[in-house]
Structure formats: C-alpha cells, structure tokens
C-alpha cells in the first residue's frame, strides 16, 4: 500500500467513525431515550469525536515529532477538566447549601 493510499484510508476511517458517533447522538434523540441516558450518549459521542478529529484529521499521534503538540493538547484537557470540574463542584455545593 503506497503512502497516499494509507493516507486516504486513514481519512476515510476518521470520517466513517465520526459519522457513526454523530449518528449515535442523533439516534439517542430520535429514539426518545430518557433524558439522562440521551445526554450521556451525546456527551460521550462529542468527546469521542474530539479524539477522532485529533487523531485522523489533525494527525496527532504518539510519534516523536508530534510529542509537543500532544503534550499541549493533554495539558489543555487537564486544565479544562480542573476548571470545569472545579466550577461544577463549587457552585453545586453552594447551590445545595442555599436551598
């Protein structure tokens, strides 16, 4: 398999996988699953697609020359988790105590 074929195959896999996850999210809404389950499915599908986009379209992998990019992406993910998670925790706690 030539480099170009491999490249094309990789894009196709990425496209198909993203389409599948999108369909799953739409399916959760169309099939009128109960709200919590549907939100979980949509959330997981969104995260999965972020990873797929990085891997197949932005070509971030574990190779050496991508290491700096990968580190920055993981660091961003860590900080987002800290900030969003912390905010949810703090404000939910305050909300509970004011009820």
């Amino acid at each position, binding site marked *: 398999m030539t480099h170009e074929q491999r490249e094309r195959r990789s894009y196709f896999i990425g496209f198909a996988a993203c389409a599948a996850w999108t369909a799953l999210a739409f399916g959760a809404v169309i099939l009128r699953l109960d709200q919590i389950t549907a939100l979980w499915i949509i959330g997981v599908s969104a995260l999965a697609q972020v990873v797929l986009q990085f891997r197949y379209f932005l070509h971030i992998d574990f190779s050496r020359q991508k290491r700096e990019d990968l580190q920055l992406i993981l660091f961003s993910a*860590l*900080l987002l988790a*800290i900030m969003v998670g912390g905010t949810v925790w703090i*404000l939910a*706690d*305050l909300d509970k105590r004011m009820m």
Partner: protein
Amino acid sequence: MNLLFGRLGWTDTPFAELIAHPSVNTAVASGAAGLVILGALVTTVLLTRYRLWVPLFRDWLTSVDHKKIGVMYIVLALVMMSRGVAEGAVMRAQQGTALAGGFLSADHFAQLFSTHGTIMIFFVAVPMIVGLINIAVPLQIGARDMAFPVMNQVSLGLTASGAALMMISLVIGQFATGGWTNYPPYTGLAFNPGVGPDYWLWAILISGVGSMLSGINFAVTIYKKRAPGMHYMRMTLFTWTSLCTAIMLIYAMPPLTVSSAMLALDRLLGFHFFTNDLGGNMMNYANIFWMFGHPEVYVLVLPAYGVWSEVASTFSGKTLYGYTSLVLATMAIAVISFTVWLHHFFTMGQSSSVNIAFGIATMVIAVPTGVKVYDWMATLWRGRIRLTVPMIYLLGFFMLFVIGGMTGMILANPSIDYQVHNSTFLVAHFHNVLIPGVLYGVLAGIHYWFPKVFGFRLDERLGRVTAGLWVVGFSLTFFPLYVLGLMGMPRRLPDFDDSAYGPWVTVAGIGALVVLAALAMIFFTFWYSIRHRDRFAVPLGDPWDGRTLEWSVAAPAPEWNFARLPQVRQVDDFWRAKQDGRAYAPIEEYEDIVMPRSTAFGLVIAVASFCMGFGIIWHIWWFAALGFVAIPAAMIFRVFRTDTERTIPAAEVREKTEAWLAAVHAATPVTRDEEDTPANRGRAVFEGNPA
C-alpha cells in the same frame, strides 16, 4: 442622551468638582489630574524641543525589535508604578492621619485602593515581567527575534491602551470603587450606574488580550526558535520559567476576559449573569475571576524565580545547583497553581470539604517553592560571591519572601482564614510575596540585563542604596499591617477611631516615605548612570562574567542578536566556551540576515482599541464604532503588505561583528575584583570554578 458626547459632560473632571466643593479631598484629586496633564504637556514640550518626535516614532513606536519592545514595556511599567506607589503613600497618609480625621472622602479612598491594585497588578507587574522576558529570552535561546514580532508590538499596544484608559480616568470621570477585583453585584448596574466599573472592565479587557497574545508569542518562540543544540534541558532557568509563565498566560487570561466580558454584558446590554435578580449568580464571578487570579500571581513570580536562578549562578560563579529539580519545581508550580483558586473565597459559604481540598492544594504548592529556595542557597554555597546589586535583592528576597510564604501557609488554613480574611493581615501577606518576590526580582533583572540592552552598567553604589531602601521601606510599611490585621483592622478602611491602631499605622506611614525614596532612587540611578555612561560602558558585552548565550554578543546587542546562530553544547554554554577557548571565535562566512520591517500596525491597533474602550465607557457610540471598525480594517490592510521583511547585507553584519571581535581580542580582560570599576569594559578573565 447626547449623541455626540454620550454621557460625557463638562462637569466630569475633578477640577469642576474642586470649584463646586473646595476641600483637601477634591484638591488631592485635582492635583493628581493636574499631574497627568502636566506630565503629558512636559513630555510633549521636551519631545518638540529636542526634535525627538521622528526618532521616537521611527526607532521605537514602530519598531518590532524584541529588545526595544521590552524596554518600552518596562518604561510603561515604571511610569505606572510611580502612580501606584504615590497612591499607596496617599492611602498610608490617610490612615496615618485617620485618628485626627483624615483628609480624603471614603469614596475617593475607595478609588485609590481600586486603582492602586489594578495598576500594580495589570500595568506594573505584568508589563515588567513581559518586558524582561522580551529582552532576555530570544537572546538566551540564541534566536534573532520573537516568533511573531508584529504580534509582539500589538501586545504592547493593547497593554499601553489599557494603561492609557487608567490614566485618563484620573482626568475624566471617576474610576471604580470596587477594589482591583471589581466584584459584582456592587459593580453591577444597580449599585454603580456610573463610568467607574466600565473603566476597570475595558482597561482589563483590552490589556488582557495583549497579555494572552504575549503568552502565545513567548511559548511559540521558545518551542520553535531555539538555536541548534539548545535542547530543553540546556535552556536557562529564566527561559524555563518564561515558558511556564507563557503557557500559564495562555490558559489564565481567558477566564479573566470571560468574567469581565460577562460583567460588561450585564452593564451594557442588561444581561443577568451576576445580578441579584432574574437568576444571576454573583458568586460565579468570584469563581471565574480567581481561576485567572491565582495562576496570575505565579505568572508574575515564576520569571522572577528565573531571574534569581540567573543571578545566584552568575554572581557566585557556579553552575546552578539542582538544575533538574528547579525545572521540575517550576512545572509543578505551574500546574498546581491552577488548582488552588478557591482559597481566595474560603468564606463565601461552601462546605468545609470543598475548603479543605483547596486548602491542602494551597499548602502543597509551597513544597516546590521551598525546593527552589534551597537550590538557590546551595548555589551560593562555597561560591565566589560578589555582593552586587542583584545579589542584595536576592538576599532581601530570601529573608522577606520566606516570611511572606509562611504567612501564606497560615492563610491557606480555612479556619484561620475565617479569622483574618479581608483584614490587613491579608494585605501584608500579598505585598510580602509580591514586593520581595516579583518587584525585587524585576529590579534585579533590570540591573542585570541593563548593560546588554544599552551598553553600559548602572551605578553600583546608587543601586545598593536603592536596594537597601526597598528592603527597609518594605519592612517598615508592611510588617505593621500583620499586627494590625491580627488586631482586627479590616483592609480598605478609610477611617477608624480605635487609638490602638495609631502607632502601627504611623510606622507604616513612615515606611511609605522610605518606599517613595526608593522609587525616587530608581530614577536617580538611571539618570546618574546615563550621565556617566562612558565610565560605565561595557561595549564588549560580558560585564558579569556571564554564563549564558546573551553575554556572548556585543552590548548593546546588535539588532540581529547573533551574526551566526550559535551551536549549543551544554548548560551554561558561553561559560563552557570561555573555558574551552571556543568563545569569541572568528566567523568564517557571514550571511545576509532577514529581519522584520518596522510597522505602525501595533500603534494603529493601540489607538483604535483605546477609542473603542473610551467610547464604550462613555456611551459615545460613534467613537466606539470607529475604533471597533478600525481594528479589522487595519488587519485587512496589513494582510496586503508584502514587503514586511528587510535584508541586512552580510557586509554590514561583517563590519560590525569584526570591529567588535577585534575590540574583544585587543582588550585586557578584567578580574571579578574590578567588576565594579571603569576598567570593566565587558571582557572577563576566566576564573574557573570557585575552589
């Protein structure tokens, strides 16, 4: 509403207020406004008198040279610091005379502490740090410029535009009274319909974008522009701390922009993010603001730690002790600083489990800082120590900063924080970390790198007096505040009638006078050194027996920094090169050097963003729209410019470099005993490792 002038009227100046209600209070306000106008007038007259408008525009305001941009950042910071220190002294005078009735109104006092804090953090500490990084980092990594030189100019422009809004608030209208954090709902439309909070918001929004762009610029520069062989673990500690600070700026500035933008939407368009009614939640403002606010203090202090590392190593003639542990500690601080923001609002009402988690995280962050202090002390141990000005600042830092860190540990305990929060104990604590930590670090850095930028040293004797005054002035001003805080004195207090406070506020007031003297000495040192610059000249470029790449080029550093990009082999590469005789090697082949061309783009963005901010603050919508449209218009115009680079011919590079190299080889190297004498022209005797 007036279509032409919005809500701006003729009575919106302190002068009108002075005429309507003559008192000491309004006279102080008018005096401050008069100083701003006088300063602007004197500058204009002097620039015209000495025909400096064209050189100023051509060589500085349109320059994209990282060294000049760094200098402009520091000049801006020094101007703003003069105002900030003066405001601090006025506040100390008010509290010192409070038992006799004081002389300021409560509202005026509230403006003073709000502008003092805002200026000191956003327009003194940040530009000083950004300025130092601009000056030193490209030289230390062996690069010719920043990754994005024009964006660098835009960052400076946005910062200056925010600073201009701060200054004009003295003359037109009134600044916010909500402290430097500008907490709603007090700063919301319902309680503060005036322009004050809007001044704060737009100064912060505009300069905040500039800081984030600086962060991106520094990070990309350090990632992509290092000289061949400059692996990560060969970078100087200052570069390491700058990298961590840059990454922190990228992630810490957006929360500030978000919280300010939400509050601006509340005030301008009737949103309800932080209002009392209609579902607003002002506690979320504190939450988002401190997601920026806490990392911010480490953004400021990390580069200062970097300066300490350079200073400790250079002035004791030793390789830094524990290089790897210092790098790891820097990274640890950068990450942990994002996990502690709740300790700024322990008393807001969340459960103790939340408080404890953030309290422990806060205590953990002291560990890597402690590691650093021990590493610096071990660097000094058995070194060939010269007690130069940066070393005096380092000693002051060791003693005072550790005390500030200890009181931070005390405050990190939520149950103690409940006792002393919002007291002057807290005020003493954060001044105790910011002044010995950040300010001393920056002043040491300025003294250290000044010869590299301007080609002559600053006077050592005056510098030592200045450093001494800062140490004494700080101690006298802020240690009494610890006692006052434990006695129960709240922060931001315009007047009181407890006579027990009297002696302590008097001592603090005397301390403020010493700090004023220290500030004056900074300017006097510059003036004196410039007057006698021939005696202090170090054109050969290495006045301190330096260890890192920036000292391997002439002083002032040429526009292109390095005639040939260096090949780096190890940590402290220049010092090793001097050891192996590789230093000052002749260059066989010179090449044309392509440098970015000067542009007025940053200046245009600065003026446009100022117009936008001022227009929005005063509801002069046509003016705001003008600025708002001018920014994308300038960007589009800029995109069509193709001649953005200019080539410096190899012959010119050869001529200057050969002349410098010839002078280096002809010079007699000086020993470290002569460091402080006119014999020091910038070539050092290689003295090897201290015995």
